[in-house]
């Protein structure tokens, strides 16, 4: 199975995503340059974290116009899996692959920390390796992670089970003091209607090794591998 990791100018988690796929799971990966129009036969596209175009204008607002995004959108429209992490989530929202937007954290400060997430939907191709309600630990590192959308969209996301991950307390409860950025309904990750584009602010590719703090991100990649190889 092959993962294509898109490198925009200013991406800085492309390396982590690439190494995760190759070192941890022994799968193939390729860096895809943002000026190219070739996804190199990737089965899964990763839009990685970072500061594409320096977050100028707004995070993700310029990257969505990168040449390669035409192919990424076509891949998504064909049902190809897209894993959009952190800045990748911001880009996916800007590109219309996912609804809503990510605003400045309510603290107005960048926040880097390990957080607890509750798996809200374990029936997606990205989360089938978890159980519903499971609480996992994954790092976040962002300044603009406050998910927002209009009421109608939020209630559609909630009722259709499209909220995949939510920020919670260690005990698994939704609690404003464990919402690191002020996201509406403590939303940390959502999926598109077709179920093949996941956007999330936390970094599963940084949670693959207990020696680095957590290996709770592994099940996300394992879910994808099981799905795509099936």
């Amino acid at each position, binding site marked *: 199975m092959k993962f294509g990791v898109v490198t925009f*100018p*200013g991406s*800085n*988690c492309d*390396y*982590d995503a690439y*190494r*995760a796929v190759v*070192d941890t799971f022994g799968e193939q990966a390729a860096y895809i340059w943002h000026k190219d129009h070739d996804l190199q036969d990737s089965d899964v596209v990763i839009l990685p*974290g*970072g*500061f594409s*175009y*320096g*977050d*100028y204008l707004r995070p993700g607002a310029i990257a969505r116009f990168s040449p390669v995004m035409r192919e990424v959108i076509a891949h998504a429209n064909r049902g190809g899996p897209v894993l959009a992490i952190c800045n990748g989530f911001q880009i996916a929202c800007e590109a219309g692959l996912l609804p809503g937007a990510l605003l400045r954290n309510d603290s107005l*400060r*960048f*926040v*880097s*920390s390990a957080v607890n997430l509750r798996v809200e939907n374990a029936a997606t191709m990205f989360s089938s390796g978890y159980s519903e309600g499971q609480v996992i630990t994954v*790092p976040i*590192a962002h*300044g603009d992670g406050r998910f927002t959308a209009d009421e109608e969209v939020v209630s559609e996301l909630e009722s259709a089970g499209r909220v995949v991950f939510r920020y919670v307390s*260690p005990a698994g409860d939704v609690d404003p003091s464990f919402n690191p950025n002020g996201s509406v309904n403590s939303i940390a990750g959502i999926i598109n209607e077709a179920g093949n584009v996941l956007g999330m602010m936390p*970094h599963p*590719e*940084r949670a*693959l*090794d207990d*020696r*680095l*703090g957590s290996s709770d991100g592994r099940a996300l990649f394992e879910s994808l591998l099981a799905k795509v190889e099936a």
Partner: protein
Amino acid sequence: MSTVHPRPGDPEITPDLVAEHGLTPEEYERLVGMLERVPTFTELGIVSALWSEHCSYKHSRNLLRTLPVSAPWVLQGPGENAGVISIGDGLAVAFKIESHNHPSAVEPYQGAATGVGGILRDVFTMGARPIAMLNSLRFGSLDNARVRYLFAGVVKGIGDYGNCVGIPTVAGEIVFDPAYEGNPLVNAMCVGLMHEEDLIRAKAEGVGNPIIAVGARTGRDGIHGASFASEDLSEASDAKRPRVQVGDPFTEKLLLEASLELIKSGHIVAIQDMGAAGLTSSSAEMAERGDAGVTIDVTKVPVRETGMTPYEILLSESQERMLVVAHRGRESEVKEILAKWDLAAEVIGEVIAEPVYRVTEGDTVVAEFPGSRLVTECPRYTPDAREDDDIRVLRERDISAIPELAEEADPAWTLRKLLSSPTIASKAWAYRQYDSTVRTNTMIGPGGDAAVLRIRGTNKAIAVKTDCNGRYTYLDPRNGGRIAVAEAARNVACTGARPMAITNCLNFGNPKRPAVFFQLREAIAGMAEACTALETPVTGGNVSLYNENPQGAVYPTPVVGMVGLIESVEHVTRSTFSTPGDTILVLGETRDELGGSEYLATIHGVVAGQPPLCDPAVERSAIDALLESIAAGAVTSAHDCSDGGLAVALAECCIADRGAQTGADVSIDASASTQARGVLFGESQARFIVSSADPAAVEATARRHRVPVARIGTVTPREAGLTIKAAGRTLRSDIDSLSAAWHDAIPSIMSAPAVALAPHEPEMAGV
């Protein structure tokens, strides 16, 4: 030599103009002697930058020579953009620390951000990929609204820059003391990883090779930044805010990737950051190291605005620029790599056989200096050194006569007070703003004794930390210099790492004052003693002088950045207790040493007394004993005992890991002459707190190294709280109140407003 003519419109060279450029009359005479004529305005500008304290180290170079700089693992010592040490397996670590104090004092956000940018470039120009950032910060008291503004701005500047470039900020230290009120210290350290064969040095070599300016265009920002950093701050300093550069981390990220690609490509001979004094110092230093001549045509330099004079182009400190010497004929390959990253590259000069440093504007020579003398002829000074009598009196004060406060009858009160003092309290408010996990190597991030990063493809890891206690150095500079090295070494050792080498950043006042030069001389001597005993040579660093304002100088603050090597990741050790039932041991001797302590400063508002004595040989034995115990698998946790003494160190072991707190039941035997407060809060050196499931093994190892060792208690469940019996006193506390004191102190202070207004600026009286 060519004929050099002043440019039309250049000001006349007068004594006032010379003084404005920071040159003494004697230095000016030396310049005229070297040129054998009166310099042009452009030449005066060049020399004012290169002979500034910041670029020339004129007051410190003679002293720096006395530091040990070599060891078999040192691949590159002082004199390059960064030092480099081998860590085996064909891998090497490049690292360096640098100050950005003056800019941060007037413009904290950009000052700190560009400090991060500059030190990153110093490391990747060696051919290393940056893998970690550290920061050593000093501020005044957080009770002051402007200090809160400086602190918040500096932290945000560090975070925004490092986060955007994608380098984890993993460790450092933050100290608050009124001595830094007017002059905050902002020292940034970068650590990079490379294959030994990729090591590249910044030497202009090969006659005919083109010199290429790479990266951002040159603007009028930051002109005279180097000389600004070489004078005292005053009320007029705010007016020099335009001398502070503005950073663009996005361009830096592109420049980082492009530079590493360039170095790998083999198309280039040398690469150097255009940092302080910009194009001038980068080109002159490369020429000096390469023993070659260079010629540069300023009309070829890509600029941001029209009408820039040679003087401005040469002295601009616009950020995110590099100077590259390429192999002749490879210009288009170099440009192609830069173009891939949307960066500009222009040939602006070449390496020449004639031993001159020449600047032209088209065909007209506007500046020319003979050979490398521009750098080597810089004056060096060894001014008078004399200890300040007032400081000697402070040191000799009998602090045992200071009576305890009534509240101190309950030592838990004292402990909570110390845990909530901002210097000791948790710094999570700051480091939560730093991405510490990007690049997925961080095994121990901020908050540990030192940070630990795994080395991919090996079973090794490195540990990194900065340290310095300015109060000790103020009261006893030689001892303080030793302790800066020893404490950094201990912190690194607590994670299981063998201390390998240091970089240092010497932050002092005005060296022309004998009291300051005495501190500088003694602190360097102390560092040299400790570096020798610990076999941690100095591989480079930075000197920042003139950290003073009309109210006085900062504490002498010789910051040490230490790199240690962990041979096997299985040995990585944390500082916090984890396992109730483990035995708690203390390695090292506890003496009645409260001089210069955090206890005296926080509880009594006193800075006095003889600071704890540091014997580098004893430090070495303690570190050896600890490392051997860790390697034998006998150590569950290890924590350095420093600010606040045993009581604070034990409390930190219980509370620092918020998700896994414990209690502890401790009883300490000390010599009868030691008061309880000396045992609890004294800061004797060369001590570690260790928790162990196999205390007999730790004891046996310590004895073999002739290190005093004592079983002092047991790790207990959180509910049991913390109990410490010492010299007839019992300290008893629940964990919640200790945890709240330590974790909540800084967030609670920082919720108060911060204002940019300088204390001396009158408030606007209603508009």
